[in-house]
């Protein structure tokens, strides 16, 4: 399931740590980079590469919020609604996103393009309200800015 390049990267990760298991989270993230999420089959492959029981991999994969154990959309939106963002209108942004995407937090659009998630504090409170789309951070958000980021100028769904 994983490409040879990913498997090679994971093997290389092992050399950074005195104990192989420390490479588990970076290895899962590497797998996710390739597949978008980490299906059970990929977890099994990571377990083999690290010589760990598959249960150890599953237990870690299910604990961390940014290791996706279910399929996600092409673009993952993490909207922060924690205190500084709440104080600066994050709820309005959430409602706007729900309306534009037609989904609620935790869901993926039927066309598979967007996943909307509520993030906990992104440690960017000076940009409140703030979101991360894939690996880029944006803020302070307005409904118009959200539209520009997600759909481009004037482009709509």
């Amino acid at each position, binding site marked *: 399931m994983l490409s040879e390049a990913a498997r090679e990267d994971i093997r290389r990760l092992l050399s950074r740590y005195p104990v192989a298991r420390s490479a588990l989270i970076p290895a899962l993230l590497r797998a996710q980079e390739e597949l978008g999420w980490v299906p059970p089959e990929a977890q099994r492959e990571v377990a083999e590469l690290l010589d760990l029981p598959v249960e150890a991999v599953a237990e870690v994969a299910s604990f961390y919020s940014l290791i996706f154990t279910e399929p996600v959309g092409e673009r993952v939106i993490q909207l922060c609604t924690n205190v500084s963002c709440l104080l600066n209108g994050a709820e309005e942004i959430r409602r706007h996103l729900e309306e534009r995407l037609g989904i609620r937090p935790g869901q993926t659009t039927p066309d598979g393009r967007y996943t909307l998630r509520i993030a906990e*504090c992104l440690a960017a409170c000076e940009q409140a309200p703030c979101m991360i789309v894939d690996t880029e951070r944006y803020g302070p958000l307005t409904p118009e800015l959200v539209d520009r980021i997600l759909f481009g100028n004037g482009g709509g769904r």
Partner: protein
Amino acid sequence: MTERVLLRHVGTPGQEDIETYLRHGGYEALRRALRELTPEDVVEMVDRSQLRGRGGAGFPTGRKWKFVPKDAPVKYLVVNGDEGEPGTFKDRTLIEGDPHLLVEGVALTCYAVGIRKAFIYLRREFYQGYRKLERAIAQAYEHGFLGERILGTDFHCDIVLHPGAGAYIAGEETALLESLEGKRAMPRLKPPYFPAVMGLYNQPTVLNNVETLCCIPWIVKYGPEWWLQQGPPQLYSVSGHVNRPGVIEAPLGTTARELIERAGGVRGGRRVKAFYPGGTSSRPLRAEHLDVPLNHESLARLGSMLGSAAVIIMDETTDMVRVIARVCAFYREESCGKCTPCREGTRWVTQILDRILHGQGRMEDLDLLESIAKNMTGTCFCPLGESVPPSLRAGLEDFRDEFIAYIEGARAPVEMPVRIREGILAPGG
């Protein structure tokens, strides 16, 4: 007002590049230490600077270093870059704005404590910081500030940049070690084995926060006396209802009123209703406390704390019930589930607050909240669960009328996605 120290070069174009950093006197502290100072000298300097950890607990850094057994064959430095306390963004600002400062601080600490391998545990959400730090570390290797025989001496030092994967609890130091060992981030029992004696892979380990380590190059370069004359510098993350939120460098003991002024005043010229002085795990204070010096001692007297110095300003329009519900939802979402008071307490409290916000609260809910807060105090395995009662207490004692307004129907119900895990957002139950 002293001039900026920690933030001196943050915001300078190209500062993340080693050439710019060197032009600003970067790595001079490391050169000086390797040429003129013994490791013991460096530890003494940090001790005399009275530097206290900036991760929240405020433990004296020099003393922490001295706990590490000198003769241990293998020791590690672990950098806590898992900043995630709501309201806190100082470490991210330092990492993105001056990544080499952290790299130099790590190298100096390794030299002082006799460590040859350091791990920087960076929360996954810091994608940009990760890229910058990765590049800074590579440049430091190229220039001989990391690796074997640094600057021609017998000192060797390696840094491994390690990503987290989304778990606030990983900021708790023993949970961070578990996570770094490739397990679920769940806190370890301590004492008897504190990390200094038995940390990463059961070896002696120094754990320091990003901001703490960014202080070290300055202390070594200019000396502890100079450092003490600076105030000493402290970073405050100021956010919420202010015109110019951001990280402000000010001496320890600066008041919230002064910080608000430096942050451009309260949005819309409104009055302050309340503020969190040290992130959401501190007890929020009322406007009458705006002139209290923000330091460990005076905040402790008010039943609050400085924590990571995240000051969240809330103006008179703020709905305190929503704020407190959001804070409790955060701890519930991030509870690792290891101990019952935290796992069940955060869940129960959130359900009650949710009910109140949806206009289905009962007057006896207030007593119930109080009793849960009491039962969570001093009973949780680690500080995460203990972070819930301060907000609840402040809500029930200082803003009780706002809770009553929801219960009596004087305030319109609101919907907030506080039940994130289940994805249930509808009112009720």
